[in-house]
């Protein structure tokens, strides 16, 4: 039990190295190892959730060096939840890719495991410099995954993605330097203690450091006007990889929540909630632009990318309120929108495979094989993504609307959320009818059969949708956990005691 917290980082790291060495020749072996690793990760993450649900924050001091001098991992309710989401999504994407995607380039599974290692590390770490290191790990793996399979357009989009993120990493380091220069620490818990004690003369530096960090996290989360990299990247990445990337934007959102509630919460005095004035308008713009993008998109992958941008906007509107109720609603929405976006990207892959001439272009073509089945999967995922009843997207948006009841800009948020939902519904309905209904008349017998029996991808999509439905059905219990997670976030003293207190360490 004591070493459970390090497993989500250690396991993929070891498996990735193993796969890079042993899995090069034997694809079946590589698939088996990779899938087994993802399954074990999911079990570990669930165990961590069960452990975290008692409200105790567990810490793991690497090498038994006490914080703030050593590196520390922290498992609270939020971190455990994010780990579970990542592992579940990863398992579904791997199942999908085992149908042949992983054979289109080398080292797919090794890169995938490194990506998981980076993601898990970013969720677990209790230190800003380590957060930077894990960001780099997940990014460098995502560069490889992004250009998996090759192609001029994809590599060009990949290069842009790399450059944007490297500039982001540079800014991250500047922010880290500023924070360290003023407070003398990078441990998140220690920072939370030091921030209120910073003399007012240094507030300017501290403020710019914190806002630079917000800028970097907003870049990862694809917040307008820093969203420009996302549609190009997601639409040009291999669709299953884009499905995994659905969780990448959530790392940014997670980091914003962590930074604001811990270090710049109520205790920070003058600097309390200094991100809110920036975050709220940016999130509202993001939502608007994303959903207009859904209407304007010409390809299915592009449309879903913009839907992801829009969902980030919805999520961060709730986050920017910074009340426990709103954060709980945001977390509920975060999980369901990630699952829905993942499922949609996997559907894109299947649709593209069946339309060799058109790919995922939103234009009527010959009737595709299994149109009814794929159409239904698309319908369910689209209902979840746009927030129609009865799925979790609706519950999530309802919770967010409810949480904004006392906000000063309530009427703005309400009208924006409802209007953009309508835009998204129109966009998705148009895409679905073009792809799955039209075109059958012209070429009834020209249906293109997929190259392989596509059972695994269907299982993968089914799993993601089933998880979404379970998220809806279990909303009551889930919300109990999420409310507790949000309350835990708003009581940073517990986090600080767990990391720095005498009872810390890995006993």
């Amino acid at each position, binding site marked *: 039990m004591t070493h459970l917290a390090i497993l989500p980082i250690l396991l993929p790291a070891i498996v990735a190295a193993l796969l890079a060495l042993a899995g090069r020749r034997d694809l079946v072996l590589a698939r088996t190892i990779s899938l087994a690793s993802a399954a074990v990760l999911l079990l570990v993450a669930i165990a961590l959730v069960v452990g975290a649900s008692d409200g105790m924050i567990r810490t793991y001091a690497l090498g038994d060096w006490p914080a703030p001098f050593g590196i520390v991992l922290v498992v609270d309710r939020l971190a455990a939840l994010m780990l579970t989401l990542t592992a579940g999504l990863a398992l579904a994407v791997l199942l999908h890719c085992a149908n042949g995607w992983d054979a289109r380039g080398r080292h797919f599974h090794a890169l995938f495991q490194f990506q998981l290692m980076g993601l898990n590390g970013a969720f677990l770490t209790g230190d800003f*410099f380590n957060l930077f*290191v894990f960001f*780099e790990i997940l990014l*460098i793996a995502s*560069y490889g995954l992004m*250009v998996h399979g*090759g*192609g*001029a*357009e994809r*590599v*060009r989009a*990949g*290069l*842009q993605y*790399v*450059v944007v993120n*490297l*500039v982001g*990493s*540079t800014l991250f*380091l*500047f922010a*880290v*330097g*500023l924070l*360290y*220069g003023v407070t003398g620490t990078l441990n998140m818990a220690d920072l939370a203690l030091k921030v209120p004690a910073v003399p007012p003369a240094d507030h300017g530096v501290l403020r710019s450091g914190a806002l630079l960090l917000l800028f970097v996290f907003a870049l990862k989360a694809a917040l307008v006007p820093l969203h420009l990299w996302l549609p190009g990247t997601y639409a040009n990445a291999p669709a299953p990889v884009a499905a995994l990337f659905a969780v990448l934007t959530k790392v940014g959102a997670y980091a914003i929540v962590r930074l604001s509630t811990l270090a710049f919460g109520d205790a920070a005095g003058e600097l309390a909630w200094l991100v809110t004035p920036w975050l709220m308008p940016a999130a509202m713009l993001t939502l608007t632009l994303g959903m207009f993008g859904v209407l304007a998109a010409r390809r299915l992958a592009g449309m879903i990318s913009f839907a992801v941008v829009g969902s980030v906007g919805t999520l961060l509107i709730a986050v920017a309120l910074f009340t426990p109720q709103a954060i709980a609603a945001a977390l509920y929405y975060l999980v369901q929108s990630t699952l829905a976006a993942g499922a949609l990207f996997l559907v894109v892959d299947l649709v593209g495979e069946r339309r060799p001439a058109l790919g995922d272009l939103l234009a009527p073509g010959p009737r595709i094989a299994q149109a009814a089945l794929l159409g239904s999967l698309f319908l369910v995922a689209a209902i979840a993504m746009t927030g129609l009843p009865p799925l979790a997207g609706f519950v999530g948006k309802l919770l967010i609307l409810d949480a904004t009841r006392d906000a000063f800009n309530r009427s703005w948020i309400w009208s924006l959320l409802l209007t953009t939902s309508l835009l998204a519904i129109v966009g998705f309905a148009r895409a679905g009818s073009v792809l799955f209904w039209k075109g059958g008349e012209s070429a009834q017998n020209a249906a293109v059969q997929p190259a392989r029996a596509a059972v695994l991808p269907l299982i993968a999509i089914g799993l993601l949708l089933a998880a979404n439905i379970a998220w809806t059905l279990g909303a009551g219990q889930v919300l109990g956990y999420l409310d507790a997670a949000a309350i835990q976030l708003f009581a940073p003293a517990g986090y600080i005691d767990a990391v720095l207190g005498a009872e810390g360490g890995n006993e």
Partner: protein
Amino acid sequence: MELLVASAIGVLTASGVYLVLRGRSFPVVLGLALLSYAVNLFLFASGRLAVDLPPVIRAAGSYTDPLPQALVLTAIVISFGMTAVTVAMAVRSFLESGDDGVGAAGAADEEDAGRR
């Protein structure tokens, strides 16, 4: 010395930003490298500038903060790896598409045309 270090960081950052905004991949890679030099210097300076002091805590005498030095070492290693990745991606993009533009296809040619 503060002025020297600060202006070095400023010049490096400014040149880096200018190069990153270019349309071809080679200047962009150079720009990223300059930016990473700038940030390494900056991180180093975040432990305050001190001359002739060891980064080791001693009972007698003063010392300089060792942590930024460790951070800089990590950042150097990471930025080195990242530069290698960027170069590899830029070369592959050039080989696959036949031009070394970073933006949309043909943007680099337009930039050339504008310069003439």
